C-alpha cells in the first residue's frame, strides 16, 4: 500500500474541490491498482430488501455460516461498478458453490428489487450471489460501517471485502482487483494466512 492512496480519503467532496486530491492520487493508480488491509467492522443489523423482494435483516444474511465476499454498487453506475461486477461475475463462476457473494446498492431509491433483479440477470448471477437494497438510511449505515461512505454515490471507490467465516476479520481490498487475485486472497484467508 502506498502512502498517497491510504491518505487520500476525504469524505464527501465537491467535484471542484476534488481536483487537488486527485492530482496527488493520480500517479499511484498506475503503480498500485489495488491493495489489501485487514479490518474488523461493527455491522448494524439493518432491515434490507433482497432482489427477490424478501425483507431481511442484514446480519442474518451475512452470518449464515458461509464465507462472504461483499461489495457496494449501483445499477446505473458507469465506470467503477461495471468493472467490480465483472469481477464478481467471474467469482460467481469460480467460487459460487462455497461463497456467499453480496452486493449492496448505494443508490437504493433507484435500485428497487426489480431493478436489482434485472441487473443480476444481465450479469448471469447464480443463486449464491445476492443483491440488496432498502432505505437510503440503511444503505448509508452499512456504507459507514464498512468505511466506504463518500457522501454521494458518484464519489464511491472500488472496494471488495472478503471474510472467511462469521466473527473473523475482513480483508479489505481497495482498487480494481481482478477476480483471480480475489480468489487467491480468499484461498489464503481460508487457509488461515494473514
Amino acid at each position, binding site marked *: 500500500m502506498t502512502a498517497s492512496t491510504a491518505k487520500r480519503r476525504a469524505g464527501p467532496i465537491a467535484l471542484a474541490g476534488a481536483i487537488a486530491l486527485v492530482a496527488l492520487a493520480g500517479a499511484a493508480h498506475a503503480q498500485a*491498482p489495488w491493495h489489501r488491509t485487514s479490518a474488523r467492522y461493527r455491522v448494524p443489523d439493518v432491515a434490507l430488501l433482497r432482489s427477490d423482494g424478501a425483507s431481511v435483516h442484514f446480519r442474518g444474511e451475512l452470518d449464515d455460516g458461509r464465507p462472504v465476499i461483499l461489495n457496494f454498487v449501483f445499477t446505473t453506475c458507469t465506470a467503477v461498478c461495471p468493472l467490480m461486477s465483472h469481477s464478481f461475475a467471474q467469482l460467481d463462476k469460480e467460487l459460487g458453490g462455497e461463497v456467499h457473494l453480496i452486493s449492496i446498492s448505494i443508490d437504493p431509491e433507484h435500485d428497487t428489487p426489480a431493478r436489482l433483479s434485472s441487473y443480476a440477470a444481465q450479469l448471469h448471477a447464480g443463486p449464491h450471489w445476492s443483491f440488496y437494497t432498502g432505505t437510503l438510511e440503511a444503505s448509508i449505515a452499512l456504507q459507514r460501517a464498512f468505511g466506504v461512505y463518500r457522501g454521494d454515490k458518484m464519489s464511491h471507490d472500488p472496494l471488495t471485502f472478503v471474510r472467511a467465516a462469521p466473527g473473523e476479520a475482513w480483508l479489505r481490498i481497495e482498487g480494481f482487483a481482478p477476480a483471480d487475485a480475489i480468489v487467491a486472497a480468499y484461498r489464503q484467508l481460508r487457509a488461515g494466512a494473514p
Partner: protein
Amino acid sequence: MTARPRVGVAVVALLATAAAAAAVVRVSSRPPSLTDRRRALAERLYRHGLLPSGQPLRARGPTGELAGADAACARCHRPSGMGVVEGDRIIPPIAGRFLFQRRADTVAEVESRHPRGPDLAHALGRQRARVPYDRDRLVRAIRDGVDASGRSLDALMPRYALDDGDARLLIDYLAQLSAAPSAGVTPQTIDFATVVTPDVGAVERQAMLDVVSAFFDVHNAGRELERLRARRYAGATASSARAWRLHVWQLTGPPATWDAQLVEAVRRQPVFALVSGISTQTWDPVQRFCERRALPCWFPIVDLPPFAEGDFYSVYFSEGVRLEAAILARVLATQRPRRLLLVRGDDAAAAGAVQAALERLGRDGIVAEERVVPSFDRPALGGAFAGVGATDAVMLWLRARELPRLGDVPPPSGASLYLSATLAGGERAPLPPAWKAQARLIYPFELPELRRAAMARVRAWLQTRGLPLVDERVQADAYLACVLLAEKLDEMRDLVQRDELLERAEVGLAMRAPTAMYRRLSLGPGQRFASKGGYVARFAAPTSPALLGASDWIVP
C-alpha cells in the same frame, strides 16, 4: 420533411426520410469523411460497443475481458466524450478537440487553452504533458494503452481489439464529437425556450413564466456587472458568462399538432434547451420532439411525464401521478382491500394515472376497477361510489376544480379513501370537510413541515423579486429548474454542450441542489426522475390545510 444539413454552421438539423422516419441523424459541423451511414455505425460502436459487423467490441480491462456495452467508450467517457469525475477517478475527455492537441503541463497553459475543469484536472492529475495524438498514436493508445508520448495509460483504460478499419471509424467519430457549438449558443448569448401547453390555466402559466423571467433578469444583471468590472479594472478576469434570452413557446390546438409547432418554433429561433415549462395533460409530443432533436428538456412541470427511461434529453423532478400510482400500489399491497375503485374525471393526466395504477396493481394481484365520472352532478357521483363497502378502497384521481362537487354526496362509508396530491392541489385541495376527514393524500413531495427550511430559500427569493406566492409547487419547481441550469452552465464554462448538460445533471444533482418541494434530488447515468418517493398524509383537521404524515417516506 427534409432539412438540408449545413456543414460548418451551428445548426442542429433534422434529416428524415420516409423510409427511416425514426432513424434520425443529428447533423452538426463535422469532417466530410463521415457519411451519415458511417456516423450511425460509429455512434453504435462508441455508445453501445457494437462493431460495424454486428459483433461485440472486445477489450481487456483491469478485471478481465470486456465485451459489448461493457467495453463501449461512452460507458466511461460519456456520450459527449467530455469525460467525467467518478469518486477520485478522472475519466478524461476524448472528444477530438482534446486529443488532437498537445496537453499542457502548467496550470496557466491549461487555462489558456481550455478554461474548464475536467481537462485542467486531468492535466494536473496525470502530472505530465503529452504531445498531440495523431491517428497512428491514437490507434496505439486504443489497442495497446500507450499514450501519445509513449507512456502507459491508466490501468482502468481497457486495451481494445480493433482492426484498422474500425479504428479509423472510431477516430473519425471522436474527431467530430462535441466539436460544433450547440445551437442557440453564441459567444455572447444563450437562447432558451419554455413550453406551455394549451390546457394550462392562466394563473399557473404566469406563475411559471414570472419566475423564469425574473431568474433570467437576475442572471443577466450579474453578467453585466462582471463585464463592467472587467472593462474598468486591470487584472479583473473577463467574464465568460453569456446573456440568457428566454422565448415562450405557447402551444395551441390538439397535441397531434404540437410537434409541427415545435419544429417551426425552433426553425425560427434555435435554442440551446427548453427550461422549465408547464403542462397538466400530455407532454409526450414535447418529449419526443426533444429526443429527436437532441434538445435538452430541463425539468418541466408536468403532472404526467412520459415514460422517460431510455430517453436521454428529458429530465423531470418526479414521475408525477405515475409515482403516486406506485406509492398507492405499495400501500395497498399490505392493506389488501377487497377491491379498489379508481375514480377520475375526463382528464388525460388522470387517465394516465389510472392506467399506471392498473398495471402496477395488476402485478400485485389487487382487483381494481376504473370509474369515469362523466359529469359532477349528484346522480353521476352517486353512481360512481355505488356499492362501495368498508373493506374497499377508493382512489380519487380528481382535479381541484372537480373536488368541491363531491359535497353533494357523502363519502363512501368506512372505505379507505385516497386522493392524488398532484391533481388535487396538494394540501390546498378544496375537498368538502366530510371527505377531508376521511381522505389520505398520496403525496409525492416532502411534507410541508419538513420542507420548511428548503422552501424558505425559495420564498425569500420570490419576495426579493416582488413575486407573491400564488402556486407553491409551480413557482418552486420553476425556480429550482433555473437554479440547476445556472449551476450546470457555470460548471461547463465556455464549452457549452447539450449532451454534457444532461451528463452533469446525472452526476451532480444530489450534492448541491436546494431541494425546494422535494425530500432529495438525485439522478444517475440513465436516470431521468430526480425525486423517487413520497408519503401518505392526512389533513390535521377538516377545515385546515395543515398536513400530517400518515406513513414513513415510501420509495415504491
